């Protein structure tokens, strides 16, 4: 279980956030640009230090400002997929995936699952953006991480690749049984993948942000559809069952 209660001074506001994430649970962190989502990921990864509070993973304290405890990134055993692919350019795709892998069989298994087995000997510069991001997922998962952090991993991909990788992630979520934190600014993506949705605005959890966004989306859908075909209006006005459940309004 990941337990987070920390603060961090940022340029325009303070990040002040508390939540937890259980194994097998995917927490989708959503919010506008500049809300502090990426900083949250960097703090969890150990790439930045909090100014107050701390992070605990199971029985291990990753950071505790009061007790002056800070576990560096390399000792946290986590997987991180950045927004745009950060594969090592001097290594082949296989060597990238196997970089911190627990064993070679896991490398084969993941490369097959993500459909990049045929790219083993290619370099990152020789393959497409979608393929690079698949390789980045494999690299992060190959070391059997205790926590998976995803910082807008699909934002640079085309629609087809995004859908495909989303489905892959949904399948993996049940298999991995680790806490997953998925940062996104795509509401549909958060609703599709998230077991819990954490809306963040100006560094704080904003419970009403999601409802407001959905209301805006619905209004847009209503007005758009009303112009085109009146019959679809009633469907667009009501939230989907999954949305109702996540919003606690069902």
């Amino acid at each position: 279980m990941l337990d987070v209660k920390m603060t961090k001074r940022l340029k325009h506001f303070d990040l002040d956030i508390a939540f937890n994430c259980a194994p097998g649970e995917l927490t989708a962190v959503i919010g506008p640009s500049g809300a502090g989502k990426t900083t949250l990921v960097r703090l969890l990864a150990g790439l930045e230090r909090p100014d107050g509070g701390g992070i605990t993973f199971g029985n291990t304290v990753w950071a505790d400002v009061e007790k002056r405890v800070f576990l560096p990134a390399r000792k946290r055993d986590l997987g991180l997929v950045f927004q745009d692919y950060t594969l090592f350019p001097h290594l082949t795709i296989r060597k990238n995936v196997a970089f911190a892998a627990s064993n070679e069989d896991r490398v084969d298994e993941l490369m097959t699952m993500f459909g990049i087995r045929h790219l083993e000997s290619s370099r990152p510069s020789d393959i497409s953006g979608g393929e690079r991001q698949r390789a980045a997922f494999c690299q992060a998962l190959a070391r059997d991480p205790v926590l998976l952090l995803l910082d807008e991993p699909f934002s640079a991909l085309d629609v087809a690749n995004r859908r495909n990788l989303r489905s892959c992630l949904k399948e993996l979520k049940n298999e991995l049984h680790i806490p997953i934190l998925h940062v996104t600014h795509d509401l549909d993506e958060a609703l599709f993948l998230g077991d819990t949705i954490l809306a963040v605005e100006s560094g704080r959890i904003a419970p009403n942000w999601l409802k407001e966004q959905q209301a805006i989306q619905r209004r847009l859908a209503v007005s758009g559809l009303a112009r085109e075909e009146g019959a679809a209006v009633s469907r667009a006005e009501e939230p989907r069952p999954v949305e109702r459940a996540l919003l606690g309004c069902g």
Partner: protein
Amino acid sequence: MDWTPLILSAKLAIWTMLLIPILASPMASLLAFGRFKGKSLLDAVVTLPMVMPPTVLGFALLVVMGPRGYLGGLWEDVTGDRLVFSFTGILLASLIFNLPFAVQPLRASLEKLDPRLLESAAVLGLSPLSTFFRIVLPNCLGGLAAASILVFAHSLGEFGVILMVGGSIPGQTQVASVAIFEAVEALRFDDAFRMSAALIPVCFAVLLIINKINARRA
């Protein structure tokens, strides 16, 4: 014509080229990635040999490396040999003189490196030392090659610092540039011409190689 000065110059240039990465790599990393007070001061100290008159640097080194100097005295206590007017002495002077010429391209190469690669390596469990050897170095080979070749060419032409620290002892410290100077002084223009003509194609080849490396890096 005596080829010994040319051979000695080549020996000095090769040794400088091989040893300079040991000094320049940590210094360039410190200047590229380090965040500490006095960074600009360290930067200025490292770059100083580039702008200082070679005779001034040579004189400073002569004082430090002489038998009464801190370094020269220590060297003599440990080895029993003199540091100045020896090949080891001119090699040490050459390393100090060439340091900025190696640090600058290496630092530029390190600063071009995507910092997220280093973060990615840390998240994947690599220690800072392993990150340097497994990620930083392979991605900065172009910069390292350019630095080494530049240092090689620069060492071949060294004159002021070598003359101050090493003098002109045939077979020990009399490198090609010093021998050419002495040949001209003694009106042996044929010898001076032959040695100069032998150095020009080497320097030209070095420049071609550097241009090729830079074109590949771009």
